[in-house]
């Protein structure tokens, strides 16, 4: 059982000691990693995903339940407690979604009897995150970016039951972010978002700020920010509404703005 994951600080790009020495993630935490482009956000989650042991350029170390991770985690992906989902993670297999999810469920053999249950549950989870529903007969390689990301998140959450999920800039792929965070909260895992999106950052429990290859600070979302998050969501909803209207070929008029502003 995984209860926690710890990052032990290493060195920044210029070789100086990383200002934040220890970060502890506990089950149920939703965290964001923020920082300008090129500051080292992706490097940080790659370190987590690789179980860095002072053997990556950052010299960071990753502990699971306070100890170095068991080699089994790396040897067998079915025991790996971490799933990394990036903007670039894609499916390569040309199978229909239903067939692939069934194969994947069967590999996790203890549940082989209930493949249909897991298939339906995974698809319905994914379809709450994406605008265009995924059909059971769609080919994996033909899914849109948003559908792919939604299915990856659903697969990692439900079929794999992976306790730690890393999500690298998934907001760009067009998934429902509030819905995602709301659904993910029900599953009591550790979710770590790399994000430029104020909505995701403020809905997180805390955010890790990265600068020049090092973690410079950790900010817990305070009461003001919690309240402010609602306003951010509202602003964001307005923009989404505008986006939708433009997508479906409507004109933007004073009347339609009055309804949403």
């Amino acid at each position, binding site marked *: 059982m995984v209860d926690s994951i710890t990052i032990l600080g290493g060195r920044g790009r210029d070789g100086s000691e990383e200002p934040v020495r220890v970060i502890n993630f506990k089950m149920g935490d939703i965290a964001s990693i923020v920082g300008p482009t090129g500051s080292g956000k992706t490097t940080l989650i790659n370190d987590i995903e690789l179980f860095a042991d002072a053997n990556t350029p950052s010299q960071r170390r990753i502990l699971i339940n306070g100890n170095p991770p068991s080699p089994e985690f790396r040897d067998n992906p079915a025991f790996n407690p971490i799933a990394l989902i990036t903007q670039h993670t894609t499916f*390569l297999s040309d199978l229909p979604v239903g067939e692939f999810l069934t194969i994947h469920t069967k*590999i996790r053999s203890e549940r082989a009897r209930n493949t249909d249950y897991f298939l339906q549950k995974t698809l319905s989870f994914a379809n709450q995150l994406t605008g265009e529903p995924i059909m059971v007969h769609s080919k994996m390689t033909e899914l849109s970016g948003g559908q792919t990301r939604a299915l990856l998140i659903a697969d990692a959450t439900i079929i794999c039951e992976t306790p730690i999920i890393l999500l690298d800039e998934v907001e760009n792929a067009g998934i429902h972010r509030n819905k995602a965070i709301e659904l993910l909260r029900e599953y009591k895992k550790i979710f770590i978002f790399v994000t430029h999106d104020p909505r995701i950052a403020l809905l997180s429990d805390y955010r890790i700020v990265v600068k020049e290859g090092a973690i410079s600070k950790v900010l817990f979302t305070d009461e003001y920010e919690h309240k402010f998050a609602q306003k951010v969501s509202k602003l964001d909803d307005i923009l989404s509404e505008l986006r939708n209207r433009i997508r479906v070929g409507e004109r933007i008029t004073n009347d339609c703005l009055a309804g949403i502003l």
Partner: protein
Amino acid sequence: MKLAICAGPATTGKTSVLRHMIKKLLKENIMVAYLKIDVQYAEEDILLQKEFGIPTKKIYSGELCPDHCNVMVLGDGLKWAKKNNCEMLFVETAGLCLRCSPYVDGGLGLVVLEATSGMNLPLKVGPMLSLADTAVVTKIDRISQAEREVFRARIQEVAPNVKIREVNALHGIGIDPLLTQVKQFMDVPTNMFLRGNPPVGTCTICVGKKEVGWQSHFGVVRALDNQNFYRGE
């Protein structure tokens, strides 16, 4: 002399895996020689020689199959490595036709497969996989966790006794167990034997008869509607 033979389709990362192994072995003061067998072009010998200053060599198999070429030159290769005071010889070979495997009894056999090559690849590569000691899976960062698991299950399906190591050949992560494994081997015997049986090999095309159509050939012939299946081992 300990021996490791590394096979795998083109561009899967064989050299990167061996490079990380060599780097770590040299840190432990274990001297390694490197022999590359390829058909018509290779520069890995020069790159590794430059990077590590170790004895390296290449041989072009030309008109021979690279795995046949391996059988021909391996004895000489071991003598050459010994003359250069090495404790281990790493041989990298491009197994091409997927009917034989280059591994020998008493030496480590590694097959390098890339996770991006599709879930059915393990079903296609034959004895190069099933007779290996370890399948090294590279490019794992490029595909989803779900597909990684399926890829692994497919390897186990065709090769239940082969160990599987997923590695990140970019950072050299996951390499250490391979070192432990190669060190556990004894020195190879003077009389070495191929681990697997070579496929039926003598054919009239190989000896230079170029007419197209089975009617023009004799010995081992095959018509389109003859679907006899050669499975290898």
